[in-house]
């Protein structure tokens, strides 16, 4: 059974019809890259899958582990194992990063039938994952994303993902705004999390990220539709030729 099965998905945001019939099948353990020019609907796909209230699904079906994903609240999706790494992580003053993460982890654990972790066990988990992302302890004790640099925010997203151990990780332009060092750290974090029972959707504008996180499949979105699908060599082709050739007619070929 597919881990995620998207069938003819239509999504509108702010009254605009953005996704116009996207279909995608993701098997356990696969990494799928979603590429495409600005405005093609890449991030809309990511946000609709995470249940963002600003994105309305007007038709189509999404099954996650055989269950109707669209029928679930955003928090239920998260507890069932969908993780969204935000393109723009929100700063939340006054909410301690570690405290929040503990609440999130225990919510996820409850769904999996596991007991709450106490503070000591939680810190043990967190310290290990923080090392993976080369995160300073102080970032755990600060307010969520408050005053974090762009790179720190993205590292914090992947760190959350590492702690919550989802079965589907959705990375929404995680590479945007990262310098090469941060990109390496973030990619290493994601690669360490790759497992045969865990899949990823990597949304990106640029091929650069895919040098580090090598996808099994690449899909190109244009004007709300998947216009090309292929292996990781498709990313290189896009890098070389840009998106112009797709928009110019390759899609119709």
């Amino acid at each position: 059974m597919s881990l995620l099965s998207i069938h003819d998905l239509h999504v509108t945001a702010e009254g605009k019809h953005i996704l116009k019939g996207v279909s995608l099948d993701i098997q356990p353990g696969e990494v799928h890259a979603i590429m495409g020019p600005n405005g093609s609907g890449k991030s809309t796909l990511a946000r609709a899958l995470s249940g963002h209230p600003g994105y309305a699904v007007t038709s189509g079906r999404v099954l996650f582990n055989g269950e109707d994903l669209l029928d679930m609240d955003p928090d239920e999706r998260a507890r069932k194992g969908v993780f969204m790494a935000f393109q723009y992580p929100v700063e939340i003053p006054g909410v301690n990063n570690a405290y929040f993460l503990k609440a999130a982890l225990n919510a996820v654990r409850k769904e999996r039938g596991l007991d709450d972790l106490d503070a000591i066990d939680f810190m043990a988990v967190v310290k290990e994952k923080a090392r993976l992302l080369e995160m300073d302890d102080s970032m755990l004790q600060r307010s969520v994303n408050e005053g974090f640099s762009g790179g720190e925010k993205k590292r914090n997203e992947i760190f959350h993902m590492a702690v919550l151990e989802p079965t589907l990780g959705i990375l929404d332009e995680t590479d945007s705004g990262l310098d090469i060092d941060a990109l390496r750290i973030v990619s290493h974090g994601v690669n360490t999390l790759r497992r045969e029972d865990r899949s990823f959707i990597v949304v990106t504008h640029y091929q650069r990220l895919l040098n580090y996180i090598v996808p099994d499949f690449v899909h190109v979105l244009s004007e709300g539709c998947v216009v090309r699908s292929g292996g990781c060599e498709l990313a290189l082709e896009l890098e070389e030729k840009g998106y112009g050739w797709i928009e110019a007619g390759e899609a119709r070929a």
Partner: protein
Amino acid sequence: MSTATLDERQAPYLAELDRFLRGRGDAAPARVRTLREQGLARFQSMGFPSTRDEAWRFTNVQALTSTPFRLGDGVPTNPMPLVQRVALPGAVRLVLLNGRFAPELSDLSAVPTGLKVGSLATALAQGAPECSHLGEAPMDAHPFAALNTAFLEDGALIAIRKGAVIDTPIHIVVITGGTGKTMVHPRVLLVAGEASQATVSLTLLTSAGEAHYTNLVTEAVIGEQAHIECVLDQRGTEGAFLTSNLHVSVARQGTFRLRTVTLGGRIVRNDASALLAGEGAHVDFDGVYLVDGSGLVDNHTTIDHATPHCTSHELYKGILDGKARAVFNGRIIVRLDAQKTDAKQTNRALLLSNDATINSNPQLEIFADDVKCTHGAAVGQLDDEALFYLRARGLTEQAARDLLIHAYAGEVLGRISVPGLRQQLERELFRQLERDLAEHTQAGAVPAAGATVDQE
């Protein structure tokens, strides 16, 4: 203020005062009798305020003034559980039961050297030197303060000796209740000697059942280089009325930090005023309040920068639900000589319903030219993007809302340095929020955007 002719709303109060004075008037020291007469004269000339008075424009006290309260002669049937509910571990505790010192509920067994805590009536009768400060605070403009003085009898005296650093929390518990509609007029006098340090918490409770009225006056005199934190913790029942007048004067290099926490009451009016009387003095006025149903919480602050190099910081944060109303009026006076003043005032409100209203009014009167004064006000709902972010990590909507409200209130609650009290107040805040959310669910109402905002 209203015209000098006796407004008929005063009559029941004056009758009650008459009964009070006939009952035990002559026994009081001459100084107390003089103060009472002055209080009465001021109350009679001012009358109760109406919404025509600038300082009461958004606060209609009709529901209070038209209630025939009786002076609290009776006592709540079983006050001990109330006291135990709020008791702070390791604290020196003085309980005022219907305005009078209640030794059986108090715990003064561990009063440290350098601290004096006791009944104000006793201190007055014994002619304690600190009592000379009583009645010094300029509260002429407040009819309720005048009413309190007219009924002056007992309360608490807290005196901290020069140089004494008191680590033991000082806890004054004011309980109002009994059969019938009860009013009390307790008085708190806090005198902090030079270079002393202490934390004083005033917890105001009312017993359930009838509507009760607590009319508190607090006078604080902070000596040079003294550091005093004062928590005004207001936990009246839903029907309770509360007026609080606090005046503090701060001498050179002294610091006074006030945290006002309001978690209940039908009408709550807090007047807090500070006189920065010596160079380098500092005050913090912070407040956090939760108001729901058709409740009203009004915070009026006045900070008088009378000398140079003084600093004042104000941060008030409200959480409004249901048809609640709130008022914030922040007056800052910078006198001609008060150069290098640094005054900062912030007022925020979180509206959880469409029908809640806040009136916010900064009032800056600056006569010096080399000063820094800033004020800001913000009114809004919970941040949708933050809510979504938290939910997208697995927190339920309610857990996410709670976390955000906790963080919002925590900015003020976190400044309370007595851990036991801070935890109590956090728990109490959430107990009330849960009740509110349950009410929403029953009524089918959805907290949403678009509530009324009046910003001047």
